[in-house]
């Protein structure tokens, strides 16, 4: 315990010190500002922006979201303001909060990824980069970067060459062997891995005889996917040396702590912020309470502390 008897909640994420392990997940927390009314930004460890691209993206037709048992599907289509508007319109807010902002981004080609990494590297308000590799490679016939180890490695290597900031690679769960993907990213220069991105799912409207989502399939998130996420974090944590950010269905402090036991150094709260905009802050607070009640002096002692 620290002198004031409060547990040490800090973690270090590939050189980025965090006041606590709770971050918000990309695409579920806007550009931060949207939640200023609900979350004291300085109560959470870091926040991650909506996925950014070189050009602004308008996203998919509607409907874009649908609820499923214990989860939701989204097919937003990576709508975002683009890197230029990000710099002019969103970065000023980042300057006002004393919490690391992590820029999530994607591209359609390896070059676009590298270019985005370069552009973001130039922004002092961006503390780290998170690369969304769950996007189709337009040069390779649409194969998703994050489902092929070589494709993924080339993205990672190109981004690595373009930035000195901590480089987080966000893994797709839609693969046969997530450990293989994790190793490929680690070997190519990733400083940390965040996992998992959404599963791919689909919902049908029986009466209309149509897919609910205009895009037919969508990204599957929420409590329903937690067992898959937890399994993947546990598998990868045993296989890599870089820190892992656990993501997937985290709704409360217990969920978050389970991810840490499985091997995560930090966690991201996604869908939960839709249901309770203050979720991330509440989770960080409740984690601290749990530590106090269970006599744990340092949250780092829980990382990978699963017995078996």
């Amino acid at each position, binding site marked *: 315990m620290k002198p004031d008897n409060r547990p040490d909640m800090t973690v270090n994420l590939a050189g980025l010190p965090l006041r606590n392990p709770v971050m918000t997940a990309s*695409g*579920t*927390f*806007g550009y931060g500002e*949207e*939640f200023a*009314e*609900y979350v004291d930004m300085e109560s959470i460890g870091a926040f991650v922006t*909506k996925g950014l691209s070189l050009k602004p993206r*308008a*996203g998919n*037709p*509607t*409907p*874009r*979201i*649908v*609820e499923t*048992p*214990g*989860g*939701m599907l*989204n097919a*937003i289509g990576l*709508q975002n303001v683009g890197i230029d508007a990000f710099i002019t319109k969103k970065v000023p807010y980042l300057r006002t909060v004393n919490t690391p902002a992590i820029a999530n981004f994607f591209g359609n080609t390896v070059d676009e990824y590298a270019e985005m990494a370069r552009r973001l590297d130039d922004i002092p308000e961006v503390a780290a980069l998170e690369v969304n590799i769950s996007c189709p490679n337009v040069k390779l016939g649409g194969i998703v970067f994050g489902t092929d180890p070589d494709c993924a490695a080339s993205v990672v290597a190109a981004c690595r060459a373009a930035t000195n900031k901590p480089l987080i690679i966000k893994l797709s769960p839609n693969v046969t062997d997530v450990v293989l993907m994790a190793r490929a990213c680690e070997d190519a220069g990733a400083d940390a891995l965040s996992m998992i991105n959404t599963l791919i799912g689909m919902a049908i409207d029986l009466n209309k005889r149509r897919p609910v989502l205009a895009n037919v399939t969508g990204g599957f998130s*929420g*409590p329903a996917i937690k067992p898959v996420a937890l399994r993947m974090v546990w598998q990868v944590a045993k296989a890599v040396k870089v820190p892992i950010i656990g993501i997937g269905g985290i*709704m409360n402090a217990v969920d978050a702590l389970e991810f840490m036991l499985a091997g995560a150094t930090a966690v991201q709260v996604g*869908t939960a*912020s*839709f*249901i*309770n*905009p*203050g979720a991330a802050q509440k989770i960080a607070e409740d984690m601290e309470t749990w530590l106090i009640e269970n006599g744990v002096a340092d949250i780092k002692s829980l990382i990978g502390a699963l017995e078996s």
Partner: protein
Amino acid sequence: MQFTAMILSNVEVSPGYWRMRMTAPPECAAARPGQFVMVRVNGAIDPLLRRPFGIFDVGTYIPAQSGAIPQPYMEMLYRVVGKGTAMLSTLHGSDLLDVLGPLGKGFDLGAADEEKLIVGGGVGLAPLYLLAKELVKGSKVRLFAGGRTRDDILCITEFERLGVECYTATEDGSLGECGLVTEALLRRLDQLKGRATVYACGPHGMLNAVAGIAAERNIPCQVSLEGYMACGVGACLGCVAPGHSHSAENPDYRCVCTEGPVFESGELKWRD
């Protein structure tokens, strides 16, 4: 803001349509007409997402006990369509509800010296009552309420009590005129002398028709949209609607929860 409301009453006002009154903090009871709330129907995971509802009315009530201090409240008018609304309808007085709001932009009340024409389809009336309450303070207000059948025509008495002149139409003729409520609207517009503003909320087809009518006659028109919402605060981008210049090649989406749910009809893309 996020708050815990205590349900004061929850009654079925017409088959399948419920009106719920609940306590609300003053900030929420001061909502502008057209704003909405996101309600968490169940604290567990089923249903997972909040459900959006318009604010039907706000006010102040005096608790039954002697010497009690007046409390602000808000009301919702909702239709049971699926799991969430079915669960809502089973709640009772003194049950608690987790509410986020008021959210979104409301209606623009416009100038006082013109006629206000309000068009509501079914439960689309929900956000229009609070609007009418404001508008009657300075203008002549007419309501055009439509529905498939008699049971879909809601709370007309409440509007009449405000001094609103009400026209009703049902597709099966079981109440009011037989046909679409836009026909009554058209007739009124034909007689119209001075300026007017149209406000509409209801099924998308109805809004489309109303927007068309207003555009043809160059009458300002505000519509309140629905959209599948996960967050209600502009973060998920699930709720968007195509803006007027939208096309597949040059998409232009507006965020219903933060830029709306009320839009000038000219801001939006409509089917021809």
